[in-house]
């Protein structure tokens, strides 16, 4: 035991054990917040962070902190209360729910400002190895719905191959990698593609007129027998899995298609290709709006909030030639942009 001197070691240990006690002091240091805090959707995250970074670099304000928590988790934090320890902004890939607004109000978060920032197209894509396969929403519905109409009744989806869905399609097994039920992307896909497809089937179309609820139950359920594979929220991973598995289709956001044009190719839906122009013009059927929500009460308390909104709604950010377009955000029509900009700068509260 020559290399360790017990007594000295003991003193070192004694001193080391004082150290954690000093940690208790750390909260003393927590001063009032001087930077914007943003939480929410992972879909809005790339755009929100781009604006935040630019805002931080070109103004005297600190760069906002943006967290990727998912829309629901973000709104939960947002609605937790009006204090400085809650976020100022929540990003969402869907509109806020009435029940969420009510909950916010119960917690003292009253004046919420809604800002719509643009569109996100949802694409159905496949590896470039195969030729482009145009699809219709009806075909998507028949391939992915849990129950489909056969001979006047609804049965568990019997279609194993695309050919069974539509004789014009190739004789390949149906395999689609898509978002899980917890995802806003899935939600939008179901509402726009599946519901749209269902409406083209006469039997369901009549049902839609008679019993809206029953129709939606039929239209929104996605099959769970393995043809539709719930892959995680990581769209990059889906893209790479498509490369490894050329027969599978993937469902994900437009910006990932944009960055991987050398590897994957999107199917035109109802004859419309998911291009920047088509989505912006509203021609592509599966696209949704992206939002962020802001606490009016924090404006003036947290430095830079007003300026951040101004930057986010400015033409150089969300315009057709703006830097967010480079990142894959599809701009709103010009009139909408103007309305949004005006409402946002006036901090008009949300009315559902």
């Amino acid at each position, binding site marked *: 035991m020559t290399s360790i001197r017990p007594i000295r070691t003991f003193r070192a240990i004694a001193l080391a054990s004082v150290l954690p006690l000093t940690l208790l002091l750390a909260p003393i240091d927590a001063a*009032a917040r001087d930077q914007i805090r943003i939480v929410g959707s992972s879909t809005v995250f790339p755009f929100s962070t781009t604006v935040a970074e630019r805002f931080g670099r070109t103004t005297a304000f600190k760069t906002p902190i943006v967290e990727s928590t*998912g829309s629901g988790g973000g709104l939960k934090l947002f609605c937790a209360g009006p204090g400085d320890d809650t976020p100022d902004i929540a990003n969402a890939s869907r509109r806020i729910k009435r029940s969420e607004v009510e909950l916010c109000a119960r917690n003292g978060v009253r004046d919420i400002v809604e800002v719509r920032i643009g569109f996100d197209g949802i694409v159905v894509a496949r590896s470039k190895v195969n030729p482009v396969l145009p699809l219709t929403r009806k075909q998507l519905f028949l391939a992915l719905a849990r129950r489909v109409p056969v001979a006047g009744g609804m049965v568990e989806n019997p279609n194993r191959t695309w050919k069974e869905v539509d004789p014009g399609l190739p004789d390949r097994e149906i395999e689609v990698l898509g978002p899980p039920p917890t995802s806003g992307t899935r939600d939008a896909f179901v509402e726009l593609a599946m519901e749209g497809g269902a409406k083209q089937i006469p039997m369901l179309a009549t049902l839609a007129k008679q019993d809206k609820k029953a129709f939606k139950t039929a239209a929104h359920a996605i099959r769970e027998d393995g043809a539709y*594979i719930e892959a*995680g929220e990581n769209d990059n991973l889906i893209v790479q*899995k498509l490369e490894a598995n050329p027969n599978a289709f993937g469902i994900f956001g437009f910006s990932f298609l944009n960055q991987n044009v050398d590897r994957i190719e999107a199917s035109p839906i109802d004859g419309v290709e998911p291009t920047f122009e088509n989505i912006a013009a509203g021609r592509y059927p599966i696209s949704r709006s992206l939002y962020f929500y802001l606490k009016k009460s924090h404006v003036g308390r947290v430095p830079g909030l007003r300026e951040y909104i101004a930057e986010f709604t400015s033409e150089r950010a969300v315009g057709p030639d703006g830097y967010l377009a480079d990142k894959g955000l599809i701009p709103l029509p010009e009139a909408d942009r103007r309305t949004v900009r005006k409402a946002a700068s006036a901090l008009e509260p949300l009315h559902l």
Partner: protein
Amino acid sequence: MFLLAALSLAGMTVLAFHVGRRRALSKAGGRWGSLRSLPTQYGYFVALWTALPASIAALAWGTLGQRALPWAAENGLDARIPGLVLLLSTACAGLAWAAAKVEPSFPARESTERIIRILLFLSSGVAILTTIGIVLSLLFEALRFFALVSPVEFFTGLSWSPQTSLRSDQVGSSGAFGAVPVFTGTLLITLVAMSVSIPIGLLAAIYLGEYASPRVRSVVKPLLEILAGVPTVVYGFFAALSVAPMIRRFGESVGLDVSSESALAAGLVMGVMIIPFISSLSDDAIAAVPRAMRDGSLALGATRSETVKKVLLPAALPGIVGAILMAVSRAIGETMIVVMAAGLAARLTANPLSAVTTVTAQIVTLLIGDQEFDSAKTLAAFALGLTLLVLTLGINLIALETVRRFREQYE
């Protein structure tokens, strides 16, 4: 500011140590013999009484006084100053009180040791506090979930499909919350992982312990341990992008229908991650078998492998079983690999070639999803977490009990 506070407290503690020691010496008139304890022990006594109350005060201020921060900010005050003052004055008071107690007849060592004993005892209680904290932070939300979904459905339902609606104007699909497929998925992946890691880990441990030269051992063992340290995110990519396609191609070449996200891929990679847990812990267990056992067997003319199989492994069994159970709970708790490679489809199947999901993967996706935060969907995560906690507790109790029984038998 924090640094200033920490440094001043540390400084005061060191100062208190010297004050206590000097004071004891001067009271004793330089004659150590008249002191009941060593001078340094008086030092420790005073130092303890300086640092301890001050830290408790700081904690109290940090958690309670912090709430005063916004108020202070609005009134143009720096709320940190009173905290610092509180800290230093408590420290001074403690120092003064303890220093006054320093007398040659004062049993400083006993006094200090009593405090240290209490501190050590409290440290051991942190584990219990943590468990209580975990249970509490899961329980309430889990109860809210069970108010929405009956526990009978949760524990016995064979269909997991949290497809409830995201918005009120939508209609949810099945919205089934039967957790059985989620747990069987976990079981399946764990089984695959174990069937990789147990043979490889155990054989590696045996080779390193019984055959490899010390040089090889000293290089290979730490290399193996790196496998356990690689972040699971990295493994997730490896599983999803390298292993899964490989299995799929292989499966297609022999005419099997393999899902592109298979339990097999996730399980194999998880198994690789777990190898070092098994190999390191079993290596220790085998090395702990007395040398005399090994020599006794060899001296009877047993070959090394016979010695290993017939003497060492049975003797090391409790340790190995413990290692395996620890690895099992690690596999059950693993999240990222599954999220990336096994998919999220909850299917009741025993086929490792199909996509399954696990409890942890569901917890993560439920918690960070886009759905509304007051739905059964989000709350389900807490119910799953609580069930998982109870489950691992059960495994551990069994493990401890098994190990104890084996020990009794062999000691």
